[in-house]
């Protein structure tokens, strides 16, 4: 049935037809009025036509019903009109009906004349086109129209965003119409070569149902397949992570605790950090190039360079853009300074993105210094941290006392950019 699906009418390109009356649309040549299902009683065709012609919708509806009773023509016309009109989409707000120069009375007379003409035409053709054919064809046609309607497409991603209830309703409606078409065909034609017909009809039912279900089934199948593939991959990864976690991380932790060799400890710590990054980056929801990761990477470099463990805690996240470069650079300098001069066995770095500012605290528990009596080297670093922050509208405050360690507080106000942590999550 794959072949049938591929020859099905392509879904209307979402960007141009759904979002409205682009002047380049080919249907504009004929001034096809738009149709909106909310507007009318059935699919909105009568309402759309009546707006276009400028008469009351009741007349259009009555005409369709009368034509429908006269051998089913009304149903066929209705479906045909809908198929054409839906190409224009539903952008009724932006659609301007044709200027009507004639009076309302004349418009009504004109429309009713056309309807009457069509009614007479059906009697002429009744000899050739039996109602016995028209009814089933119209019903089956409607079933096909419903089956191949792709529902709502998201204009940005071109993915189907029709909710499943809608799909079920469409499926039910399509099946009901198909069944009605078959029943009509049987009821109206049973008197003629019955045996052959019932075979043909049974075949048609099966083929019709298959065609009707094919798009749905193929889509369902694709979804299941890709979902299953994803699940297998994430299960494999989780299994490997659990294994690595239990064996390798434990070993690395043990090495760090029990080895007296500083080089070995640092190596184990670096390996642990790299493994951890790989293991947890997927599920912790971190923005891969966000502030959090960038800061962690910068601190890891300082740690490797100066062989002092740095504990980095980050709360919140945001994209790593030019704005955060100043505070990243200042944090790195502060950490480098602490690692080189303080003699502290470890450095704590805490960063928080809160509302419209980033704060970073770099703390050591080393020798500390008296901020009033510092040597030229430290003054230079202090000024470069402070200068860098102040040039970008931020502040840097350094607390230190001899013997009580040093803490650098960096604050940077943010002008733009949302927090990554505030990416909207659906609420239920």
């Amino acid at each position, binding site marked *: 049935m794959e072949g049938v699906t591929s020859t099905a009418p392509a879904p209307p390109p979402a960007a141009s037809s759904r979002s409205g009356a682009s002047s380049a649309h080919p249907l504009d040549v004929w001034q096809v009025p738009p149709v909106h299902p909310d507007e009318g009683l059935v699919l909105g065709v009568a309402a759309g036509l009546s707006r276009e012609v400028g008469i009351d919708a009741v007349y259009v509806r009555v005409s369709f019903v009368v034509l429908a009773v006269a051998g089913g023509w009304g149903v066929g016309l209705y479906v045909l009109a809908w198929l054409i009109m839906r190409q224009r989409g539903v952008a009724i707000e932006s659609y301007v009906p044709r200027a009507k120069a004639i009076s309302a009375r004349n418009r009504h007379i004109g429309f009713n004349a056309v309807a009457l003409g069509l009614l007479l035409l059906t009697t002429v053709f009744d000899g050739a086109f039996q109602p016995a054919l028209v009814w089933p064809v119209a019903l089956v046609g409607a079933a096909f129209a419903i089956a191949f309607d792709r529902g709502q497409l998201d204009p940005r991603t071109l993915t189907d965003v029709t909710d499943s209830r809608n799909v079920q309703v469409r499926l039910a409606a399509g099946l009901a119409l198909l069944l009605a078409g078959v029943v009509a065909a049987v009821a109206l034609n049973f008197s003629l070569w019955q045996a052959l017909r019932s075979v043909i009809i049974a075949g048609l039912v099966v083929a019709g149902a298959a065609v009707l279900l094919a798009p749905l089934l193929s889509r369902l199948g694709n979804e299941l397949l890709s979902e299953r593939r994803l699940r297998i991959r994430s299960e494999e990864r989780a299994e490997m992570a*659990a294994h690595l*976690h*239990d064996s390798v*991380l*434990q070993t*690395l*932790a*043990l090495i*760090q*605790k*029990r080895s007296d060799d500083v080089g070995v400890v640092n190596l184990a710590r670096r390996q642990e950090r790299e493994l*951890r990054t790989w*293991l*947890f980056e997927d*599920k*912790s*929801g971190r923005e891969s190039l966000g502030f959090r990761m960038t800061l962690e990477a910068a601190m890891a470099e300082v740690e490797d360079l100066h062989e002092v463990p740095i*504990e980095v*805690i*980050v*709360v*919140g996240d945001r994209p790593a853009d030019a704005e955060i470069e100043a505070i990243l650079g200042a944090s790195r300098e502060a950490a480098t300074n602490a690692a080189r001069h303080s003699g502290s066995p*470890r450095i*704590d770095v*805490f960063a*928080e993105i809160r509302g419209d500012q980033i704060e970073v*605290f770099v*703390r050591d*528990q080393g020798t500390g210094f008296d901020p009033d009596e510092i040597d030229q080297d430290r003054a230079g670093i202090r000024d470069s941290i402070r200068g860098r922050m102040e040039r970008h509208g931020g502040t840097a405050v350094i607390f230190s006392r001899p013997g009580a360690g040093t*803490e650098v507080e960096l604050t940077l106000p943010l002008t733009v950019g949302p927090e990554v*942590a*505030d*990416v909207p*999550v659906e*609420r239920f």
Partner: protein
Amino acid sequence: MIRVVLVDDHSLVRAGVKSEIGDAVQVVGEADDVDGAIDVITALKPDVVLLDVHLPGGDGPAVIEGVKAADVETCFLALSVSDAAEDVIAVIRAGARGYVTKAIASDDLIDAITRIAAGDAVFSPRLAGFVLDAFAGQMTVAEVDPELDLLTNREQEVLRLLARGYTYKDVAARLTISVKTVETHASSVLRKLQLSNRNELTRWAAHRRLI
């Protein structure tokens, strides 16, 4: 002397921890999986359980649930190499009174065990960061018990200082409050984390694909 049970599936780790803390506390029992842990804890009723987050036959939270179901009163301290927020928060929400990493220095670990035994909460900087993250946003949606849903300003201040690497004593000095008050704040944060089902926590969990 404080009676301690070690739960970890790596015998090497258990041996290491035991040799580190064995002088200061009494290690009365060990277990290497969930069922074994529940049996040992139920039988020995220790003061403190050092609990690995990942175990064969279930995880840390399963042990806590099992012991709770057996109606045994004990305090859990999560001791893990895991850095994943979901593991840590899950074991805390199940009822652990604290979380430290296995890289913790021996003295700090003994100190943590002592404080857990006394009924306090133990916040490593990382746990403080996770909790801040979990309660982040502080949206004033007053649909559930508002008392449980928001950290007070003081609690946030305490957590921020803990995340910055301050000890309880440092925090007390910095905020000019007593260490006892810091402990009270920490315990209250823990209680909120365990009882809260607030939107923000749910959202945070969803963001990290916990649920």
